[in-house]
C-alpha cells in the first residue's frame, strides 16, 4: 500500500488526472464566463473534452524542415513541467512535497512550458511560427520579472520560501491578506501574460500570425499543448491562491479542497474579466507596460511587506 500511494498521488490526485480534468473544466468555465459577458450562449460543459478527444484522433503532420524528435517531444516536456510544479503547491492543506525554497523551484518549473512554446515555434520553421516564437521570448522577459517580484513580497512577510508555510502564515494572519492587494493585482496581470490570454495573447494573435508558435502543430501534439496551457492555468491559480490568499485558510481534508476549488474559480473569474475588458496590445506596449507599471507595483509591495515585517517584529 505504501508503495502504491505515491503513484496514486502523481497519477490521480492531485497529479495528472485531477490537473487534466480540472484544467479542461476551467477552460470551459472561462469560455462560458466570457460568452455570458459578451452576450453569447457559450459552449456546453463537455466542449473542451470533446475538442481534446477529437484532436487525439487527428493525423500528426511534422514539417520536413523540423527536427522530428524535438517537435514530437516538446508538448510532453510542457506537461511534465507543469505537473512537477504542482507537487510543491498546496492543493489541500499542504503540498505533496514541500521544502525550504520550493517557491523558487515552482517559478523555475513554470518557465519551462514557455520555453517549450518558444522551441516549438522556432523548430517549426514556418514564418508565422518564427515570429510567434520571437514574441513568446520577448513576452517572457516582460512578465516574468513582475511575476517573481510580486511573489517575493508575501514570502518576505511570512519569512519563508516554502509555499505551504506561506499559505499557513496567511491562514494564521488573515488580516494581512488584504494588505497584499497591489501584489495580487500585479501577479494576476503577469499570470494573464504567462498564460498568453487576452490582452496578452500576442504570441498567437490569430489576426496577425495565424496560430503563432503552434501554427504547424496538429492532432495529438497540438492537443497536448492545449492541455498543458489548461493545466498551467490551474497551477498558476493554485500558486496565487497559496501565496496571496492563504491557501486552505486553516481547513482540513475535503473542506480544504473545497476552499481551493472555490478560490481558484474566483481567480479564473478575475482572469476572464481581464480577458473580456480589453483589446490586444502590441508586443512593445506589453514590454513597456510590464516594466514601467507592473514591476514598480510589485516592488512597492515588497517595500510594504518589509515595513510590515519590521513593525510586526
Amino acid at each position, binding site marked *: 500500500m505504501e508503495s502504491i500511494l505515491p503513484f496514486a498521488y502523481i497519477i490521480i490526485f492531485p497529479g495528472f488526472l485531477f490537473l487534466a480534468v480540472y484544467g479542461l473544466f476551467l477552460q470551459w468555465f472561462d469560455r462560458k464566463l466570457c460568452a455570458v459577458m459578451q452576450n453569447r450562449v457559450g459552449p456546453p460543459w463537455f466542449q473542451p473534452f470533446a475538442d481534446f478527444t477529437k484532436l487525439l484522433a487527428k493525423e500528426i503532420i511534422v514539417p520536413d524542415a523540423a527536427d522530428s524528435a524535438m517537435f514530437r517531444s516538446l508538448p510532453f516536456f510542457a506537461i511534465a513541467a507543469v505537473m512537477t510544479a504542482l507537487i510543491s503547491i498546496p492543493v489541500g492543506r499542504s503540498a505533496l512535497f514541500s521544502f525550504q525554497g520550493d517557491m523558487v523551484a515552482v517559478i523555475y518549473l513554470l518557465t519551462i512550458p514557455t520555453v517549450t512554446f518558444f522551441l516549438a515555434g522556432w523548430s517549426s520553421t514556418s*514564418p508565422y511560427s518564427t515570429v510567434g516564437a520571437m514574441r513568446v521570448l520577448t513576452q517572457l522577459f516582460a512578465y516574468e520579472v513582475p511575476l517573481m517580484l510580486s511573489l517575493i513580497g508575501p514570502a518576505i512577510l511570512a519569512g519563508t520560501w516554502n509555499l505551504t508555510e506561506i499559505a499557513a502564515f496567511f491562514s494564521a494572519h488573515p488580516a494581512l491578506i488584504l494588505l497584499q492587494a497591489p501584489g495580487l493585482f500585479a501577479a494576476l496581470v503577469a499570470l494573464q501574460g504567462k498564460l498568453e490570454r487576452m490582452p496578452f495573447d500576442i504570441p498567437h494573435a490569430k*489576426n496577425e500570425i495565424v496560430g503563432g508558435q503552434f501554427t504547424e502543430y496538429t492532432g495529438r501534439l497540438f492537443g497536448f499543448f492545449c492541455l498543458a496551457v489548461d493545466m498551467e492555468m490551474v497551477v498558476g491559480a493554485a500558486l496565487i491562491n497559496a501565496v496571496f490568499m492563504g491557501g486552505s485558510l486553516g481547513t482540513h481534508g475535503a473542506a480544504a479542497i473545497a476552499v481551493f476549488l472555490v478560490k481558484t474559480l474566483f481567480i479564473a473569474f478575475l482572469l476572464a474579466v481581464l480577458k473580456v475588458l480589453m483589446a490586444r496590445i*502590441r508586443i512593445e506596449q506589453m514590454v513597456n507596460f510590464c516594466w514601467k507599471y507592473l514591476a514598480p507595483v510589485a516592488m512597492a509591495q515588497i517595500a510594504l511587506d518589509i515595513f510590515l515585517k519590521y513593525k510586526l517584529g
Partner: protein
Amino acid sequence: MSKITIPLGPQHPALKEPENFMLVLEGEQITGATVNLGYNHRGMEKVAESRTYIQNLYLIERVCGICSHSHTTTYITNVEELAKAEVPQRALAIRTLIAELERVHSHLLWLGVAGYEMGYETLFMYTWRDREQVLDCLELLSGNRVHYSINTIGGVRRDITAEQKAAVLKRIKYLEERTQYYIKIATQETTLLARTMNVAKLPPDIAVKYGAVGPTARASGIKIDVRKDEPYLIYDKLDFKMITHDTCDVFGRVVVRALELVESYKMINQILNNLPEGPIAVKIPMKLAPGEAVNHYEAPRGEDIHYLKSNGTDKPERLKVRAPTMANLQSVAYMMEGGWLADVPLAIAAIDPCMSCTDRAVVWDAKKGKKTTYAWEDLRKLGIEHYRKRGVDFTKL
C-alpha cells in the same frame, strides 16, 4: 536582424475575402509591403452585357454583399437617366432611407470587424448584436436582410406603411443610445486608444495623391462626400453634417464612422417624418436609346462610380463599376510601411475593404506593353480548356 517575408493572405484569419499582402519584416517592424489582388474576380461586368436591364438589377446587387443598395442605386440612376424618366419623389425618399439604413449596418459591422482585428472581441460581439436591429429594419421594409432588392427601374418595389415607420423609428432610437455608448468606448478605452492612435497614418497630401475616398479620406481631414458635393436622391433636402477628423490614423477612422452613424440616424428620422406622398414607381421602356451615363454615389465605404453605355437594345453595351475599395487600396501599402506587424490587420480593415467589388481581369503583355481584355466567348473557352486539362469535360454533359 535578418529580414523575413511573411505572406498575409490569400487565406488568412485577418482577411474576410481573398487578397494578398507580402510583408517584409525586420523583427516586428515592416520595411516593405506589396498588395496583390485578383483572387476574387467574377467577370460581372462582362456578364452584365448579356443580360437585360431588369435582369442586371439582380446581378449588380450581388457585386457586394454589404453595399448592395449602393450599387443598384447607382446603376439604376444611370438607366433612368438614359431613359429620361422622372422618378417619383416618394421613391427617391425610400431609396435614401434604405441607403442610410445600409450605411448604419455597414458602419456597425465595420466597428465590430475593427474590434476583432485588434483582438477586442467583446466590442465585436456587442456591435454585431446591435447590428441585428438595423437588419431587422431592412427586413421589415424590403423583405430581405442583405440583398434588399428594394430598387426597381423607375422607382421602388415596396411602399412604407405607418406601422413599419413606427417600428423602424423605435429601433433607431435604441441604436442611437447604443451608438453613444460605442462612441464613449472608442474615445476612452485605454487599450483601444493604444491600438488606434498614431496607427496607419495617412497624411492629407498622400490621401489626395493616392485618391482615397469616403471615411478613409475624411479621417485625413479631406472634405469629400458625394452626398454634400453633388447631392443625389433627396440629400439636398436633408439636414446633416459632413464628419471629418484630423488625426489621419485609425482612431480618426473609428471616430468618423461612429459620428456618421449619428448623422445617419438623424437623416432616417427626417426622411420617415417627412415622407412625400405619391406613387412609388413609373413605367420605363425595356429598350433604351443609344447613349452614355456616369453617376457616382456615396457608398458606406466611399465614392462608388458606375458607367453605362446603351445601344438601343434591351441590354447594355458596356457597364463599368469603380468600387470605393479600388480607390482606397492604393493607400494601404503606404499605411503599413514602417508600422508594426500587429497593426497590419487593423490598417487593412480601416479602409473597410471589399475585394469582390474590386477585382478585375486584364491580360497584360509585358513584352509588347499592351493590354487586352477577354470577350465572354474567350473566357468560356478558357474555362472549358482549364477543366479539360484536369480531366473534366463540361461540354459533354
